[in-house]
C-alpha cells in the first residue's frame, strides 16, 4: 500500500472553444479558492508543445506530482497528457461541456465548475498504483487434449519458447484424426482430399524437447490462477500436482450419438453408417459394404443427420458438407462407375471450399436438394426432392451414410458430474438469468429451493442433452468446476470481436470445443489461444490485467474488518476471481482479476476498493457537485456512464455538437457492474433529483466486456424500490438507459427526456438537508 501525499496541479485549456464558451478565471477560482490547489495554470493550447512544457516544468520542479488537465475528453490526447507513464486526471470540458452547451451561459459555467471539482476530488482519492506480484510464477502452458488441435497448440507454444505439458485422456495422441483416411484441402487449389499427416505431427511433437506428453491422463483438480495454477493430474492411478502458468483446452468434440437417429435407419441395417464409421471403410481399394463385403456401388450421403434439427442439435456442425464431399470424392476415385448421391438441405461449402464442391460435381457426384423423411431397413431413402417437386424414395442403395454432427467436449462424459456442476451450466448457458446461481446460494438458508423459470428450464434442456459427464479441469472456483459456456454447450467466448476473451482468465479454449470447425481452422485457433495464454502468463508475472483493461496494475482490496461475508463479491465476479478462505472470508486471486470493479459494486458495506477507483473516491465526486436549492429551479441529475460505450457516445454527441440539458453531471465508471446502490442512495440524499445508469445492452446478445455488468445493474436497480420508499422518493427518479456506442444521435432525447420526467415529478425534497 502506497500512501504518498499528492500535490495536484490544475491545468486549464482554453482551446477548441473552451475559452470562448466559459470563464477560465472562474475555474481558477474553484481550484485556488475552494480547493486550495497550489498550482493552477491556463493555456490556450494545452496539448501543444508549449502547453505540455508548462506541465512538465512543474513536474520536474517537483511542486506537482498529480496533474489535473481540464480540457478535452480523457479518451483523446492520451499521449499528450500522459506524464512519466501516468495519465493525468482529466476534466472533460470540451466534448461534454462547451461542445454540448450554449456558450456564455451560467449553466454551462456551473457544469464546467462541477467537472473541475469532481476531477480534483478524484485526484485526491487516487493513490498511485504499484504492481504487487507475489510468489512464484510458472511459464509452462498446460494443453489439455492431444488431438490435432492440442498437438498444434503444443507446437505453437514450443516454437515460441514456452514449455508445454500436453495431457491426453487416451493412451495415444492424435484423437479423431487417427481415423481419417484423408483430410480436407485447405491450401490452393483447394480441390482434392489430402493425405492425413497426423502421424508426422505426432512425431514432431514427441521429438520436441520443450513438450512433455502425458497420455492416459486426466486433470482431476485445478486451483490458483494465471501464472500460478496448481493442476492435479492422475495417470494410471497415481496422481501428481503440476505448477503451470496458463491452460489451453483443446478437448475437441465427439460425434452426435447416431443411436438417436433411428428414423434415419441407424441400427436397422448395418449398411447405414455414420461418416466417422465410413472413414474406416475408405481405403485405396473400392468401397465394400459392412454387411457382406460386397462392393458398394451406389451410396447416398444424408446431410444434417442430427444437426440443424431442434429435436437433436440446433446448430449447424459446419464441417459435415465438406467431409461428405471428401468421402464421395474418395469413393468416385476408387470406382468411377459408382453412383454417389449427396442429399442436402443447404449445401455449405463456404469460402474457397466451393472449389471442393465443384470438384465433386466434376467427378460425377450427384447433389440432391431435399429434406430426408426416413431411411428404411432395406435402405430405401424417402425425401422431398424439392428441385423435381415430388417425393422420391430412392431404392437399391448399397449403403447410406449419415453425416452426423459435432458435439463439443465441454465436459468429459467418461466421468461423474460434479455436484454443483449442473447449476453452473444452467446459469452459464442462460444469460437471461444472470443471478440464478447467486440467488440460490445467497438464499441457502431458505428452506424451499427457488424453482427455475420457464426460460431457465428451456435453456437447461440442451445442456443436459448435450453435456453429460464431469468437468474437464474440475476448477476449484466458488462459481463452479466447469469452464463457462456460451450457447449450445460450446465454451464461452466474447463472440465476434474478442473470441478469446473468456470468463476464466488464463484458461483458453480452442478448436471444436469452441465452435464447430475443421482441422485447418482449429490449428489456427490453437495458435491464437496459445498467444493469449502467453499474454496471461507474462501479464500475471507483471501483476498487470488482461483484456480489456490491459496493463492495469490496480486491483480490488478487500477490507475484511467490515466484511459481512455476504458472498456477493465471490458470486457476482464475472471471472470467478474471488474465492473464500476457511472462515468464508473473500480472498482475491489477483491474476484472475480483470479490474472491472463488479465486486465493488456488489459490496453492500463498501469495503472493496481500488487505489485509483473506490467507493469513497466516487462518493467524494458526488459530494463535490454543487447542488443548488430548489428555489434556483436548477435540477441536478447524476449519470453513471460506462466508460466503454456510453461515455464515448456522450463524447461523440459533443463532437457532433448535439445540445442537451446542462443539469446533468456524468461520472464515468469502469462498468455498470461496479456501481453500488450506495452511490445512488447517497446521491439522492445529497439532493440530486434523478439518477441514470447508462450502459450497454444486456441479455442474450450482451455486449458488456465484463459479461454481466449491465445485467447486474438492472438486477440491483430492481431492488432499489424499497430504499426509495424508505426515503419517500418516487421510483422514477432512478432509471437505467441502454446506450450503445453508436447512439450519439439519441443522447439528447435520452437525457432531455429524463430531465423532463424529473421536472414533472418535482424537486428532490432532500435538497438543502
Amino acid at each position, binding site marked *: 500500500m502506497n500512501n504518498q501525499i499528492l500535490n495536484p496541479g490544475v491545468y486549464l485549456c482554453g*482551446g*477548441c*472553444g473552451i475559452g470562448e464558451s466559459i470563464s477560465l478565471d472562474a475555474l481558477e477560482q474553484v481550484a485556488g479558492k475552494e480547493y486550495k490547489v497550489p498550482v493552477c495554470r491556463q493555456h490556450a*493550447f494545452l*496539448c*501543444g508543445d508549449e502547453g505540455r512544457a508548462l506541465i512538465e516544468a512543474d513536474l520536474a520542479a517537483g511542486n506537482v506530482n498529480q496533474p489535473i488537465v481540464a480540457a478535452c475528453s480523457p*479518451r*483523446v490526447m*492520451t*499521449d499528450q497528457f500522459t506524464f512519466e507513464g501516468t495519465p493525468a486526471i482529466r476534466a472533460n470540458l470540451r466534448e461534454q461541456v462547451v461542445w454540448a452547451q450554449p456558450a456564455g451561459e451560467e449553466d454551462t459555467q456551473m457544469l464546467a465548475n462541477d467537472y473541475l471539482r469532481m476531477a480534483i476530488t478524484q485526484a485526491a482519492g487516487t493513490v498511485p498504483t504499484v504492481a504487487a506480484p507475489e510468489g512464484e510464477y510458472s511459464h509452462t502452458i498446460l494443453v489439455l487434449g492431444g488431438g490435432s488441435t492440442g498437438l498444434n497448440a503444443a507446437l*505453437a507454444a514450443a516454437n*515460441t*519458447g514456452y514449455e508445454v505439458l500436453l495431457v491426453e485422456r487416451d493412451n495415444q495422441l492424435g484423437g479423431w484424426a487417427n481415423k481419417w483416411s484423408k483430410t480436407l484441402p485447405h*491450401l*490452393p*487449389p483447394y480441390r482434392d482430399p489430402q493425405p492425413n499427416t497426423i502421424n508426422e505431427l505426432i512425431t514432431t511433437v514427441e521429438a520436441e524437447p520443450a513438450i512433455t506428453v502425458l497420455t492416459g491422463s486426466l486433470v482431476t483438480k485445478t486451483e490458483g490462477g494465471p501464472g500460478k495454477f496448481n493442476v492435479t493430474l492422475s495417470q494410471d492411478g497415481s496422481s501428481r500436482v503440476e505448477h503451470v502458468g496458463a491452460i489451453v483446452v483443446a478437448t475437441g468434440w465427439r460425434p452426435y450419438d447416431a443411436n438417436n437417429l433411428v428414423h434415419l435407419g441407424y441400427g436397422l441395417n448395418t449398411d447405414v453408417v455414420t461418416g466417422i464409421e465410413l472413414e474406416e471403410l475408405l481405403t485405396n481399394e473400392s468401397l465394400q459394404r459392412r454387411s457382406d463385403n460386397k462392393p458398394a456401388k451406389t451410396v447416398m450421403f444424408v446431410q444434417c443427420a442430427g444437426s440443424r434439427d431442434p429435436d437433436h442439435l440446433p*446448430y*449447424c*456442425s459446419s464441417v459435415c458438407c465438406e467431409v461428405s464431399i471428401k468421402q464421395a470424392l474418395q469413393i468416385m476415385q476408387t470406382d468411377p462407375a459408382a453412383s454417389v448421391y449427396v442429399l442436402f438441405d*443447404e449445401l*455449405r*461449402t*463456404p*469460402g*474457397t471450399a*466451393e472449389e471442393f464442391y465443384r470438384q465433386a460435381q466434376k467427378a460425377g457426384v450427384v447433389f440432391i*436438394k431435399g429434406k430426408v423423411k426416413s431411411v428404411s431397413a432395406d435402405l430405401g431413402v424417402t425425401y422431398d426432392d*424439392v*428441385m423435381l417437386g415430388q417425393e422420391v424414395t430412392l431404392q437399391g442403395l448399397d449403403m447410406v451414410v449419415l453425416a452426423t454432427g459435432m458435439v463439443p467436449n465441454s465436459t468429459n462424459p467418461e466421468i461423474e458430474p460434479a455436484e454443483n456442476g449442473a447449476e453452473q451450466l444452467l446459469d452459464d448457458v442462460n444469460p437471461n438469468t444472470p443471478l440464478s446461481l447467486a440467488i440460490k446460494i445467497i438464499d441457502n438458508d431458505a428452506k424451499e429451493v427457488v424453482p427455475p423459470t420457464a426460460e431457465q428450464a428451456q435453456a437447461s434442456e440442451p445442456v443436459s442433452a448435450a453435456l453429460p459427464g464431469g468437468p474437464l479441469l474440475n476448477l476449484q472456483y466458488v462459481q463452479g468446476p466447469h469452464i463457462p459456456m456460451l*450457447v*449450445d454447450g*460450446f465454451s464461452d467466448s466474447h*463472440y*465476434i*470481436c474478442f*473470441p*478469446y476473451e473468456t470468463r476464466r482468465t488464463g484458461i483458453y479454449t480452442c478448436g471444436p470445443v469452441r*465452435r*464447430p470447425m475443421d482441422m485447418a*481452422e482449429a490449428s*489456427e*485457433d490453437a*495458435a*491464437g489461444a496459445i*498467444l*493469449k495464454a*502467453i499474454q496471461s502468463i*507474462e501479464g500475471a508475472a507483471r501483476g498487470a490485467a488482461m483484456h*480489456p483493461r*490491459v*496493463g492495469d496494475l490496480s486491483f480490488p482490496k478487500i477490507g475484511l474488518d467490515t466484511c459481512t461475508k455476504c458472498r456477493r463479491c465471490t458470486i457476482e465476479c464475472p471471472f470467478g476471481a474471488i474465492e473464500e478462505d476457511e472462515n468464508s472470508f473473500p480472498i482475491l486471486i489477483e491474476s484472475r482479476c480483470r479490474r472491472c470493479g463488479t465486486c465493488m459494486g456488489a459490496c453492500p458495506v463498501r469495503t472493496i476498493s481500488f487505489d485509483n477507483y473506490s467507493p469513497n473516491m466516487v462518493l467524494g465526486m458526488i459530494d463535490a457537485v454543487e447542488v443548488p436549492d430548489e428555489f434556483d429551479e436548477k435540477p441536478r441529475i447524476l449519470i453513471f456512464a460506462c466508460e*466503454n460505450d456510453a461515455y*464515448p457516445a456522450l463524447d461523440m454527441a459533443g463532437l457532433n455538437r448535439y445540445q442537451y440539458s446542462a443539469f446533468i453531471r456524468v461520472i464515468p465508471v469502469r462498468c455498470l457492474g461496479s456501481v453500488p446502490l450506495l452511490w445512488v442512495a447517497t446521491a439522492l440524499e445529497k439532493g440530486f433529483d434523478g439518477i441514470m445508469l447508462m450502459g450497454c*445492452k444486456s441479455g442474450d*446478445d450482451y455486449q458488456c466486456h465484463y459479461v454481466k455488468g449491465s445485467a447486474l445493474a438492472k438486477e440491483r436497480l430492481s431492488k432499489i424500490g424499497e430504499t426509495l420508499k424508505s426515503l419517500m422518493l418516487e421510483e422514477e427518479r432512478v432509471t437505467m438507459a441502454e446506450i*450503445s*456506442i*453508436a447512439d*450519439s444521435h*439519441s443522447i439528447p432525447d435520452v437525457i432531455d427526456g429524463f430531465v423532463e420526467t424529473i421536472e414533472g415529478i418535482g424537486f428532490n425534497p432532500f435538497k438543502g438537508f
Partner: protein
Amino acid sequence: MNQGPASQTILVVGGGIAGITAAVEAAETGYEVILLEQSPALGGRVSAFSRYFPKLCHPTCGLEINYQRIRKNPRIKVITMAKVESLSGQAGDYTVLVKTKPRYVNEKCTACGDCAKATDVRVSNSFNYGMDKVSAAYLPHEHAYPQKFVIAPEVIDTPDADNIKAACKYGAVDLDDTESVFELKIGAVIWATGWKPYDATKITPYSYGASPDIINNLEMERLAAHDGPTGGKILRPSNGEPAKRVALIQCAGSRDTNHLPYCSRICCLGSMKHAVYVREQYTDAVVDIYYIDIRAHDRLEAFYRRVSADPQVNFIKSKPGHVEIEEDGTPVVCGEDTISREVYARSYDLVVLALGMEPSALTDTDAPHMGSRDDYGFIVPLPGDEPGLSSAGVAGGPLDVSMSVQSATAAALSAIQAVRKATAQSGALE
C-alpha cells in the same frame, strides 16, 4: 544473409479489424509494431458497417476497446494514408519502402472543426461510398481514430485552402504536405490488406447503375447507419421514400465462374441482417431474399431460424436471371423460383446486391512481394515458405469478423515466432 542483429519489429499492413487485432495482440505480447493504413483512419470495412450479425451490435463497440488498447500501448506506431511500395529481404531483416499520401494536417490537430467552417467546398464522402458530400476539410467520421481532420486534395492550391489554413488556431494545417517515401527495417510482416466489394457493374444482368434504387450491400450498411447519408433511415435513393418492398440478391458475383468462383461466406448472414434493418423500421415492409444455398454456420443457424420465422421475410431459392428497369425507374427482379417453378418478374422499392469479397491486394497493380497467393489473389503462405510473411483476415481468404480476429491472433503469433527465430539465428551468426 542477415546483417547484424535481426529486427524485432512487426509490420502490420492494413488497419481494418484484422490488422488492428494483429497489431494489438503482438504489441501486448511485448513486441514493437508498426501499423500501416492507407486511408486517413483505422477501422477498415467494419467501421462502415452499421451492425454485426448475429448479435446486431455495433462494430464501433469493439473498435473503441481496440483504440483504447492502442492509445495505452507505447509499442504500437500507427501510420495512416500509407502504403507499402516495396519489400525485400527475409525474416528478421526486411527492408520496406513506405509511401504516404499528404493529409495536409499535422499532429497538432485537435479536431475542433474550425477548418470545416472555413470552406463551402463539399467533396464526395468516401466513408458513405459517395452517397453524400462532406466539407473539403473533414473528419473521416465521428469515431475516426486518429481523431485528426483531413483536407481534400481538391481544394489544395485554391483560395479555400488558404482560408482553411487561416482558420486553424493551432498551426495544424500544412498545405505544403507532400507524398513521402521512407524506409523501414522490419522483422516480420503481417498482410491484413482486407477486401473490396466485387465490381457490380461487371454483373451486367443486374443493372447496377441503371437505377438509383439498385444498391450494393455496403451501401445498405450506410443507409442503416445513424451517421450515414439518410441518418439511418432505409430510403429509396431515387425519391427518398421509405423502401418497403426490398429484394436482397445473394451471390452477386460470388459462386460464379464468370466472376468470383468462391463463396464469400458473409453475404447470406449480411443480407439477413439487412432484412432485420428493414423490418425494424417498417412493420409493413416485405423483404425477399433470393439465394442458392443459405450458408449459416454453427450458431449463425439460430439467426437464420430467427429471421426466417418472420412471415414478412421470404427466402426464395432462386438466382435471379436479371433485373429490368421499368419506365419510372422501378427495378424488376426476374427469375425462376426453383421450388415452385414460378417464373417471376417482381418490382421492388429497393434491390440490394449482396456483392462478394475480392482481396484488395488482387487489383493493386504495384503490389509488393507478399508471399504465396492463390488463384483468386488471397495471400496463403504455403509449407516451406519463408516464415516472415503471414496474412490476417480476409487478405488470406473470405472470412467473417470473428474468424478474421482468430486468424489475426494466429498471424500475430506466427510473426512473433518468425522474429524470435531470426533473432536466434542472427545471434548464432555473431
